[in-house]
């Protein structure tokens, strides 16, 4: 640097990125200190979408928590439903019928597919690839149609129940799913062509937001972001729940842990999830979808109308809530973003004493400064997209 340049008075630019900024969707604020375009420092400010989920849970019965979980990761609500139901069932020690497990697997995987679609689509959009965005939105629409067919809602699904599910799969679901997947695969191939081999896209995401594996573990990474670092940790494989141990699927891993690896891992997981859904639809046995434990799961409407025991249990569970035994439990499922854990404490009453959620994107968001410091403002875009921070889940 020449002397005259040294004498020039210059200072860092401190700038608020968010909470209302196109890139900070999910509502978060970055306080950036910039030197030109380079990020010198970054502070992450979360909490703009805090709704007191955990406190709300304490004021409702165990059953009433279910719709709240829809609003955690609102892109893949079915996984939250399943995660919460599994946690409560673990607390009570319920083993749901086989058919129910399969349907839950199908639901979770559909939700995962739609989450990955949304994530990749939005990343493309923010990097300027608007066409890729709309291709995946079309694919997501097909998946949402399936979800709507399954549970009647597209986003706020509220499908799973403690000890069962709301309703069985509708007629013709299998055929519809096959047709949708066919189109989804075409769209996947189109987006793959538009992005994966696109030099501009690769330049934007490769070697950006690198996280070494050891640090990723230290930060508490899980899910696609951890797998992108080369660590094949997947709750579905390491602590199989439902019927994942009977499914044939692979866990894609990345090599470097940069945004490109995260993108590739997600793209491949879409395929693997489709495989799981197809297998589950093949293998699904017939049988009941709810446990026969009237103190925890309502009997059928027919029984409630005709059998006095069912009516009493129905009355008791609706008014007072189901009463799991005293105790505490941690149960995790593989959410679309990583390990989605529920820590539940029961004092034996009809309401949760404590319902704590381990959101997968909280540690990821916390590591944002580590990943973008020294990079450019433009690097925030793909990095923040690829950690897929969902405000509802992160702030709760």
């Amino acid at each position, binding site marked *: 640097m020449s002397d005259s340049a040294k004498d020039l008075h210059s200072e860092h630019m401190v700038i608020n990125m968010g909470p209302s900024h*196109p890139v900070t969707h999910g509502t978060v604020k970055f306080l950036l200190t910039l030197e030109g375009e380079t990020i010198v420092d970054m502070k992450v400010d979360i909490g703009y979408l805090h709704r007191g989920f955990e406190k709300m849970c304490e004021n409702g019965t165990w059953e009433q928590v279910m719709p709240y979980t829809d609003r955690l990761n609102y892109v893949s609500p079915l996984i939250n439903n399943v995660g919460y139901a599994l946690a409560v069932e673990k607390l009570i020690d319920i083993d749901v019928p086989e058919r129910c497990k399969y349907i839950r697997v199908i639901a979770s995987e559909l939700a995962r597919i739609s989450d990955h679609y949304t994530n990749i689509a939005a990343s493309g959009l923010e*990097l300027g690839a608007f*066409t*890729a965005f709309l291709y995946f939105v079309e694919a997501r629409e097909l998946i949402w149609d399936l979800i709507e067919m399954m549970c009647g809602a597209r986003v706020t699904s509220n499908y799973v129940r403690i000890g069962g599910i709301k309703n069985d799969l509708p007629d013709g679901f299998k055929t519809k799913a096959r047709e949708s997947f066919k189109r989804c695969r075409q769209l996947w191939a189109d987006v793959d062509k538009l992005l994966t081999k696109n030099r*501009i896209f690769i*330049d934007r995401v490769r070697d950006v937001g690198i996280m070494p594996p050891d640090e990723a573990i230290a930060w508490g990474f899980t899910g696609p972001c951890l797998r992108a670092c080369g660590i094949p940790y997947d709750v579905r494989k390491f602590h199989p729940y439902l019927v994942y141990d009977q499914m044939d699927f692979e866990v894609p891993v990345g090599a470097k842990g940069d945004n490109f690896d995260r993108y590739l891992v997600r793209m491949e997981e879409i395929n693997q999830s489709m495989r799981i859904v197809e297998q589950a639809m093949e293998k699904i046995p017939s049988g009941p979808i709810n446990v026969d434990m009237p103190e925890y799961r309502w009997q059928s409407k027919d029984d409630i109308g005709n059998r006095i025991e069912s009516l009493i249990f129905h009355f008791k569970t609706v008014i007072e809530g189901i009463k799991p035994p005293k105790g505490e439990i941690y149960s995790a499922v593989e959410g679309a973003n990583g390990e989605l854990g529920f820590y539940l404490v029961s004092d034996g009453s009809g309401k949760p004493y404590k319902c704590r959620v381990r959101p997968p994107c909280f540690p990821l968001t916390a590591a944002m400064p580590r990943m973008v410091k020294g990079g450019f403002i*433009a690097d925030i875009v793909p990095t923040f997209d690829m950690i897929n921070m969902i405000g509802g889940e992160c702030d709760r």
Partner: protein
Amino acid sequence: MIPDLIESILKILFIFGVNIGFFSPILGWVERKQSALMQDRVGANRADIFGFTIIGLFHPIADAIKVLTKEDFIPDGADRLIHTIAPFVSLTPAIIAFAVIPFGGQYELFGHKVNLIIADLDVGILFIFAFASLGSFGAVLGGWASNNNWSFLGGLRASAQMLSYEVVMGLNIIGVIMVYGTLRLSEIGAMQVDLFDWGIFLQPVGFVLFFTCAIAENKRAPFDVAEAESELVAGYFTEYSGLKFVMFWMGEFLEIVTISALVTTMFFGAWHLPFVSDKMLVDFFLGFAGDNGATILAMVVNIITFFAKVVFFIWLQMTIRWTLPRFRYDQVMRLGWKMFLPIALINIFITGLVLLVK
């Protein structure tokens, strides 16, 4: 004298009408419809008059009404004067640049010579460059005067990017000038009668580079780092609303037209049809239209040919814009200085070598 005046006024009205009256409103619609087509959507079709939507063509009118009735907002602490001037600085050069682009050849009508170019400057290309560079002041001033950090960053990016790409663009032009031996755009156009005299065959590398640089100069995707909506909100026009915003926007669209016209003139045979010379056209029409009639018909065919080519390049730019993601700022600069500049220099060298050997 009087015929000259009438001719000039007619030409100015024509170009003005085509650009301001046709291209700039219609391109907004085209962009919406084309992106919709590429993305399996329907696109703009809501604006209607008595239930008629005519494939969304009322949208430009609806937009115009909306824009005219919007509040003209100037943020606190902004430099009011410069903030107001900036959009004019951005739009005016885009309108003026078309003055030196020929949209047809030279004709003899009723004993009066008609030259289908508003101002036949002998430094036509340089004139366009001068005015294109002036346009970048609009972005810089707008970004600087808005008193907003995002605008400021956008303005800085815009100025750096436009300066760098102007250098490469200028060097590309040198290849064309060497081949045709003139700076006058009407002469360059007139020389491309034979298909294999078109610039695309004489300067293929120059064409690719020039077209890319021109898109970059116009700051459209994939080079839209200056307005990068996901990074800088809207870049240098973050703090603009209403008509002033639209002036930036119109400037951008008119530059698309200018770039297409320039590329057509220099590389794609200007107003000539491939394999059909002007003389053949006139001879063909002479059979049934008489002397002046044949000339007029030939003139019309030439103008249509020219604008058809322009429309093709507009389409090409739109397709590129809706296909590719955005570069990062440093990648844009690296591409300009480290890739395009050396290639442009090598191109000049090889062009010179070929000319020397010939």
